[in-house]
């Protein structure tokens, strides 16, 4: 037989079998498709939630930071400023929480069928891409409404989308593999996301943080993502290269260690879940 499979005990890190993941690409596609299909089933607003949620986030954060705290940004309506942040933030936070709980949500698949487990959290993050595209289109509509003309910098935007995905995958790999054994993740996750929201410039600009803390602040890769979104769409803020490099490095470390930990734990998922 040309395609003989050998099963034997494995120890340590199992290899990332890219060819095998490629062979299961249709399952990956169907899992993304299922998540999208099921997301707004039996809701009154349906896919309009993809628009309603960022709009509500925008209004709340604008009231808090613009009206109550009194922050403002030169040359940009505060509503538009927050909306860009919320679009990126929602893509990240929904990706992370979806991915972190994805293995438990698909426990029956894990204990009954074989496939590379890594496609489960990855599919959970990718299925958020549609919501993101809808919210992003609304951002473009708002830009037209506020007579805001984007420049060439908007071409850089996909780089920040990729950075969001890499960061979400890294955190998602960590949390989902830990949650198979320790259900604590499910309880802690909402609070972790909430804390992250306040240490991320979603409702305010990153330059509000005192300069001596900037280095620490930019160790959060999502700071770079949200500043990057606004920089490329609205030309606000600056993108100091050293801080951007720091964020990207942290995202890379999260991704690589998350992936390694996932591959180390993967073998035991079916026994423990």
């Amino acid at each position, binding site marked *: 037989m040309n395609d003989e*499979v*050998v099963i*034997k005990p494995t120890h340590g890190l199992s290899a990332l079998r890219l060819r095998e993941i490629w062979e299961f690409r249709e399952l990956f596609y169907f899992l993304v498709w*299922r998540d999208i299909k099921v997301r707004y*089933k039996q809701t009154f607003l349906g896919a309009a939630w993809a628009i309603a949620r960022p709009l509500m986030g925008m209004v709340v954060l604008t009231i808090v930071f613009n009206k109550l705290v009194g922050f403002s940004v030169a040359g940009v309506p505060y509503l538009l400023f927050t909306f860009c942040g919320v679009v990126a933030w929602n893509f990240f936070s929904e990706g992370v929480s979806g991915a972190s709980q994805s293995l438990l949500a698909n426990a029956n*698949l894990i204990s009954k069928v074989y496939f590379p487990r890594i496609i489960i959290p990855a599919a959970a993050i990718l299925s958020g891409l549609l919501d993101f595209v809808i919210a992003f289109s609304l951002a473009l509509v708002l830009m037209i409404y506020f007579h805001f003309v984007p420049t060439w910098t908007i071409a850089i935007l996909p780089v920040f989308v990729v950075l969001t995905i890499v960061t979400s995958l890294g955190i998602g790999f960590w949390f989902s593999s830990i949650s198979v054994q320790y259900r*604590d993740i499910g309880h802690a996750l909402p609070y972790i996301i909430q804390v992250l929201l306040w240490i991320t410039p979603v409702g305010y600009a990153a330059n509000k943080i005192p300069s001596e803390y900037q280095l620490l602040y930019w160790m959060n890769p999502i700071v770079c993502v949200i500043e990057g979104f606004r920089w490329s769409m609205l030309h606000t803020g600056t993108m100091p290269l050293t801080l951007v490099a720091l964020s990207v490095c942290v995202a890379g470390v999260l991704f690589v260690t998350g992936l390694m930990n996932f591959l180390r734990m993967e073998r035991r998922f*079916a026994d423990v879940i």
Partner: protein
Amino acid sequence: MSAIISVEHLGKQYRIGALRRGNSFRDAFDEKIRSLLSRKKPSESKDEVLWALKDVSFQLEAGEVLGIIGRNGAGKSTLLKILSRITGPTEGLIRIGGRVAALLEVGTGFSGELTGRENIFLNGSILGMKRAEILSKFDEIVAFAEMERFIDTPVKRYSSGMYMRLAFAIAAHLDPEILIVDEVLAVGDAAFQRKCLGKMQRVARAEGRTVLFVSHNMAAVQTLCRRALHFAAGRIVAEGDVDRVVKGYLAPAAPSAGSSLREPVELGPALRLDGIDLPAEPVTSGGPLRLALRFSARAATAVAELAVLFYSAEEARVAVLDLRPGGLPANLPAGGGWTASCAVPSLPFVEGEYSVGLYVRADRFADNRFNLARFVVAPRPAAGGLAPYGAEHRGLVELDFTATFQAGSGGPASGAPSDSRAATV
């Protein structure tokens, strides 16, 4: 022909202790502290080790249909999980020379919100079919499931029978070189079960597929397979011609006492069966039987139906205790425990070994569980100084009856006592 599957010295170890403990950070933390204080390496702590499989070796030729039988917990399902690569072995080596599809359950990954049509694509791809393959077999699957009218209805609106029919129909149209099947024929009504068995037979015989077939249904195993493996306590105890192996499996082992259920069994998302208490000593035929089923609820639930099922050693259902009239708990709070104590004043079973199963329906979950516990019925003291016929000639139950005998030709005789019925023996 060469072996398409070869298994050498396969072993799988579970650490029961490690699974019981360590399900939250705090437990893991406590464990660390304790091991630091006692200056022992964590591996030296007294985790109970269970070998679910030990030193299992066998070979399977291409086109062969192999039956795997054994009691619950004998290691059958673990073997299938390793063969289908869901979990890894602790030791040993397996070589597989073909595309494997494993059916450890039908309907894996079904999403209630999606329609039947959508679930065919989702489930098909989960089972390893390509999109084009599903498209080409789509009509056949729908026809097999007898589902044409409801194919665009969300699956959550299906009856459980429809759900199972669709799930099996998809599975039955898998086209791998090696098919691994675990107990999936135990679904649907009798007519659909026959249809499934027929389909399996065609797959196995006519299409020359290699099949590994696990079942508690001995008739199905004997119909489908020529060769069988009998597992007990993680080892192969008998191997060879299916009729001989099945006979060895069914023959009661040393006249042992009954065995109560001690391991908890999960019954759906909310309910857990903690144990079944049975008398350890044999029950005398015609004497009383007491048994208690202990449940606990992991989440608030309502038990709508509960029945105790009694099976003979040949796996024929002898009797059920329908517990619906007893006042089942309509409102079991999360964490609440509950015991159903049953007493049969006079158990009419012929001596032999019997097993206890369970049918339960709670909220959206309904299932049969077999072979949960066993008990032995001992012969009743012989009456009238006459040796009874052997147990194998006497069927399954002893009936109370009276008989009178009269001389004379056939036909109802006049003057027969009105209080006794005529009977022929």
